[in-house]
């Protein structure tokens, strides 16, 4: 085997700590012992790949998964998946899930007193194209209350899950909307110390992908970890 190139370390403050006490659920679930640093081996720089046969056209249009159209404001959410070296990442599985327009998830544990929409599941998948692009049509999700603290409300958001080229590039994140007045109060959005990194989770309104007479476009580019420029030599 040739020496392996590892991945670059994260820039300071651009990723959340595990323990973030204002996000109450982290208190009993975040590790208390220091993480053990390990080198990149073949285990970490490989990972599962998923072909286009895994998804369908319907999977990336969340407004056409049922007999009728869901309620709410149609939107287009699209962007590119790149690595930290600005290289597009093709053939990457992008999974999304979200609440409906009223702020209710189709999940047995969601007891929020808001209506379910029989025409909206809130789940989609896409595989990035040769330029790393993905594209979803969906409904703008509603804000909803949660029990983290008094009068807590989550800003509107869409959950994103990505694999990238290896197990080391695995990422789960959330996309937010520009101008959302709830963002300054949300402990999950604010768990990342670096303000610029945090604000990159906010999508950008986009004329180019806005569909005339049909749907506003929002752009959300996602950056996965990039390889070190040179392979690590055996010491």
């Amino acid at each position, binding site marked *: 085997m*040739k020496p*392996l190139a*590892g991945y670059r370390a994260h*820039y300071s403050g*651009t*990723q*959340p700590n*595990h323990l*973030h006490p204002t996000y109450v*659920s*982290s*208190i*009993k*679930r*975040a*590790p*208390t*012992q220091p*993480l*053990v*640093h*390990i*080198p*990149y*081996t*073949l*285990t970490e*720089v*490989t*990972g*599962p*790949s998923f072909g286009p046969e895994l998804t369908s056209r319907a999977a990336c249009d969340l407004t056409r998964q049922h007999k009728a159209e869901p309620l709410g404001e149609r939107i287009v959410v699209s962007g590119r998946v790149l*690595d*930290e*070296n*600005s290289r597009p990442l093709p053939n990457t599985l992008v999974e999304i*899930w979200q*609440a409906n327009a009223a702020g209710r*998830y189709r*999940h047995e*544990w969601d007891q929020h007193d808001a209506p379910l929409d029989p025409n909206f599941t*809130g*789940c989609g998948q896409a595989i990035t194209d040769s330029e790393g692009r993905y594209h979803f049509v969906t409904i703008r999700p509603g804000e909803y209350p949660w029990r983290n603290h008094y009068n807590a409300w989550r800003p509107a958001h869409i*959950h994103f*899950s990505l694999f990238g080229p*290896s*197990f*080391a590039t*695995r990422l*789960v*994140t*959330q996309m937010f909307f520009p101008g959302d007045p709830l963002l300054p109060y949300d402990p*999950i959005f604010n768990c990342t110390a670096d303000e*610029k990194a945090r604000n*990159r*989770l906010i999508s950008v309104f986009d004329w180019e992908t806005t569909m005339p007479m049909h749907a506003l476009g929002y752009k959300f580019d*996602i*950056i*996965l970890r990039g390889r070190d420029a040179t392979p690590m030599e*055996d010491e």
Partner: protein
Amino acid sequence: MSLCATTSQTVGPFFKIGLLWLSRNRLVEEGVTGERVTVRGRVIDGDGVPVPDAILEVWQANSHGKYAHPEDTQDKPLEGGFQGYGRIPVNAEGAFCFSTIKPGTVPGPDGKEQAPHLAITLFMRGLLRHLWTRMYFPNDSRNAADPILKLVPADRRSTLVATNAPNEPGAVEWNVILQGKNETVFFELGL
């Protein structure tokens, strides 16, 4: 140009909507070579209470010690019917179970072989970044020389090694303890 990796956020409590379509607790199909093993365990939080809303992902080599990935250039066979990927949600009691094969050895950072192991990532409400760990196999003499286990303080290594399940041949037990006594070792990638 150098970009900055997107910041991680929690999967939240409702990830089943988005992630269960790809759940896979049987990693191996008929005809694939290797020793069959069932892995059972629970995810336990800092109050000692089972976590009912966690999801694990598994990545592993096949029985020859070969990953189904272009970066693995070893001259070892790949096998159809075995990708090496699993996605396993816990049940309401915080328990998970999956069936696979014991992987072969793969090269380590110093050119020495690593003991057979599964790479495990763990996602749940409350985790702003997913956790990264490994499971090793019981009674495997190669564990003692494993270059990754050697980086773990000796008194915590046992948290990464499964035990034989009582009265169930071919099954092992491995629990994920998030906090406290016997807290599972979690990794940060990169030295």
